[in-house]
C-alpha cells in the first residue's frame, strides 16, 4: 500500500511526454509535438493560459484522450498498461465528476472496491483532506472547495507514487491553499511525483520546484524555478537626480532601463553595488529595492501572444476580467518596494 520509494527503480515515478500531439476534429491542434519529463521527488507546476492544452495533455497522460501521435508514459508504460492503476497513479481532474446524490464516502468506496483497497482507506483519506465530518453527506451539498478536497482524497486513495492534479487549488480558501501547498511539498519529499496544473502563478512559484510552461499546445519553457530565476533579480532605484546615477551605472556596465521619470531598473548588478555607487556619487535615493524573480512576469513574457484583447504596449494579462487600471497591481515590484 505504501509507495516505497527507496526500493523503486528511479524511473518508476517518472512521467515522460514524448512528441505528443492531439488534433481534435481534424483541425484544432490542442497539443502540438509536446515533450517534457517530470521527475519523482519534486513538485512540478504545469502552466499555460486557458486553452493552452494543459488539461488535454493530462488526459492523454491518463489514457482518457487518445493522442493523435506521440506517447505519454508513467514509469515507462502507458496508463492503461499499469496493473491496478489507482495504486500507482492518483489523479484529480475535475471537481464536477461526482454523482450529486451520492455521499462523498460512497464515491471513495466505489473506487476502493475496484482497486481492492480496504474501506478504512476511504475514511483515512477523508480525514486527511478534512472531510471526515461531511463524509456521509451527499456531494450535492458540497461547496466547490469541498469537492476539490474530495477530488484530492480520491487521488490519494491508493497512496500513489504519482499524483496528477488539474487546478487543485481552485475554490479553496487561503487556509486550504496553504495546507495543500505544505501537503504537496511533503508528498514530493517522500519521493513521489507531483504534477499540478495551475493558473495561480504566485502560488506555483512558492509550491513548485520545476515548471513546465505551455502555450498554444507547445512547450515554451521547462525547468526548475532556480534555473528560470537565475540572474533575473533586478534592482529598482528611485531618485530625483537621475542623470548622474545613469551615467555612473553605464560606466560600470550595468544594464539599465528607465521605468519612470524618477525611476530606474538595474539588471546584472547586485543591490549593494548600486547603493555604493549612489553613495560615492552623492546621489540622493528615495528607493533602493530588489525585484525578485517573478514567475508571473516570465509567464506573461512567454505566453504574450495568447493574451488576446490587450494591446501590445500593455502588460498582457491572462484574465481578461481584470480591469486595465488594476494592471499596475500585477507589477513585479508589488509588495517588495516600501
Amino acid at each position, binding site marked *: 500500500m505504501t509507495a516505497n520509494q527507496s526500493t523503486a527503480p528511479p524511473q518508476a515515478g517518472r512521467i515522460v511526454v514524448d512528441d505528443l500531439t492531439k488534433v481534435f476534429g481534424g483541425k484544432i491542434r490542442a497539443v502540438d509535438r509536446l515533450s517534457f519529463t517530470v521527475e519523482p521527488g519534486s513538485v512540478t507546476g504545469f502552466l499555460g493560459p486557458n486553452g493552452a492544452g494543459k488539461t488535454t495533455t493530462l*488526459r492523454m497522460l491518463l489514457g*482518457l484522450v487518445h493522442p493523435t501521435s506521440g506517447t505519454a508514459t508513467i514509469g515507462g508504460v502507458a496508463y492503461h498498461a499499469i496493473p491496478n492503476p*489507482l495504486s500507482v*497513479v492518483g489523479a484529480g481532474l475535475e471537481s464536477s*465528476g*461526482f*454523482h*450529486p446524490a451520492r455521499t462523498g464516502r460512497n464515491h471513495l468506496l466505489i473506487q476502493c472496491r*475496484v482497486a481492492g483497497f480496504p474501506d478504512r482507506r476511504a475514511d483515512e483519506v477523508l480525514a486527511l483532506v478534512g472531510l471526515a465530518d461531511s463524509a456521509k453527506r451527499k456531494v450535492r451539498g458540497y461547496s466547490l472547495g469541498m469537492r476539490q478536497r474530495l477530488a484530492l482524497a480520491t487521488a490519494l486513495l491508493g497512496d500513489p507514487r504519482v499524483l496528477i492534479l488539474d487546478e487543485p487549488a481552485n475554490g479553496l480558501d487561503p487556509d486550504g491553499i496553504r495546507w495543500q501547498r505544505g501537503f504537496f511539498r511533503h508528498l514530493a519529499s517522500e519521493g513521489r511525483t507531483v504534477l499540478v496544473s495551475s493558473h495561480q502563478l504566485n502560488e506555483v512559484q512558492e509550491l513548485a520546484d520545476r515548471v513546465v510552461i505551455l502555450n498554444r499546445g507547445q512547450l515554451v519553457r521547462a525547468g526548475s524555478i532556480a534555473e528560470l530565476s537565475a540572474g533575473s533579480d533586478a534592482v529598482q532605484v528611485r531618485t530625483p537626480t537621475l542623470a548622474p546615477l545613469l551615467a555612473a551605472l553605464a560606466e560600470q556596465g550595468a544594464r539599465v532601463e528607465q521605468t519612470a521619470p524618477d525611476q530606474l531598473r538595474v539588471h546584472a548588478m547586485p543591490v549593494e553595488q548600486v547603493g555604493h555607487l549612489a553613495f560615492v556619487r552623492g546621489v540622493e535615493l528615495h528607493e533602493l529595492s530588489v525585484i525578485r524573480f517573478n514567475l508571473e512576469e516570465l509567464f506573461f513574457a512567454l505566453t504574450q501572444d495568447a493574451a488576446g484583447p490587450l494591446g501590445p504596449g500593455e502588460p498582457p494579462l491572462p484574465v481578461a476580467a481584470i480591469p486595465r487600471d488594476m494592471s499596475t497591481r500585477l507589477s513585479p515590484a508589488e509588495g517588495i518596494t516600501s
Partner: protein
Amino acid sequence: MIGLIRSEFLKLRSTQVWFWMLMAAIAITALLVVGQLAPRDNVTEPSQAYDVFTSSGMAYIVVFVLGVLGVTTEYRYQTITSTVLATPSRWKLITAKMITYALVGAAYALVCVIVEAAMALPWLAAKGIHVSLGSNHIPRGLFAVFLVVALFGIVGLGVGALLRNQIVAVSVGVIFLLVLQNILIAIPGVKHVYPFSPGGAVNAIITISTQDKTINGVTLLSAAGGVIVLLCWAFIPAALGAAFTLNRDIT
C-alpha cells in the same frame, strides 16, 4: 472482476434510483395483474392463469431503463472519468456492468414475481379458480420472465453505451419498445421483421406452444429463437459500445 462488480453494485446502491425503479416495476406488475383479474369474465379457468403469472415480464421495460442509466449517468455526471481511471479496459468495464445489471434484473424479476403471486394466488382462489405455482406451465413462464428481465438490463446497457446521452437513450429506447415496435406489426411488409425485434423476441420467449403464436398474421419465432434474438439485442450493442463509443476521448 469481483471487485469491479461489487463496485458497480455500490454505484447502484449508493443513489436512490434503484428504489424508485423497483417501485415502478412493482407498480407495472400490479397494474397488469389487476387489469387481468378485475374484469369478472376475463380469467375463468386455470389454463388462463398463465398470462397473469407472466405479468412481471413487463418489468423488462424498467430494467431496460435502469441499464441505460447504468452507462449514461456516468457520462451525465462525468463519473466516467474516475470509472475509466480505475478500469482503463472498456471491455472489462462493460463485462462487469453486464453481469451486475443481469443480476439486478433477476432480482427485480424476483420481487415482481413475488408481488404477482401474492396478488394473483388469493385473488384467483377467491374467484374459485385453483392454480398453484407449479401447474399450468407457470414455472416455465416464470423462468421466461427471469430470462427476459435479466437480459433487458444488458440491452439497456448496450443502448446506453451506444448513445451515451441519458435523455436521448432513455427516450429513444422507451419509445421504440413501447410504441414503434407495436406500430411495426401493423405495417404490411415491414411487419415481418417484428419477430426479430426485442419485443417480438420477448413474446416468442413468453408465449407457450398452447397459445396463439401469430400476431396480425406474423408468426413469432420459437422460444429458443426468441432467446437467440434477445441475446443478440443484449450483447451486440454492448460489444459495439465497448469497442467504439465508450472508447472515445473522455474530455
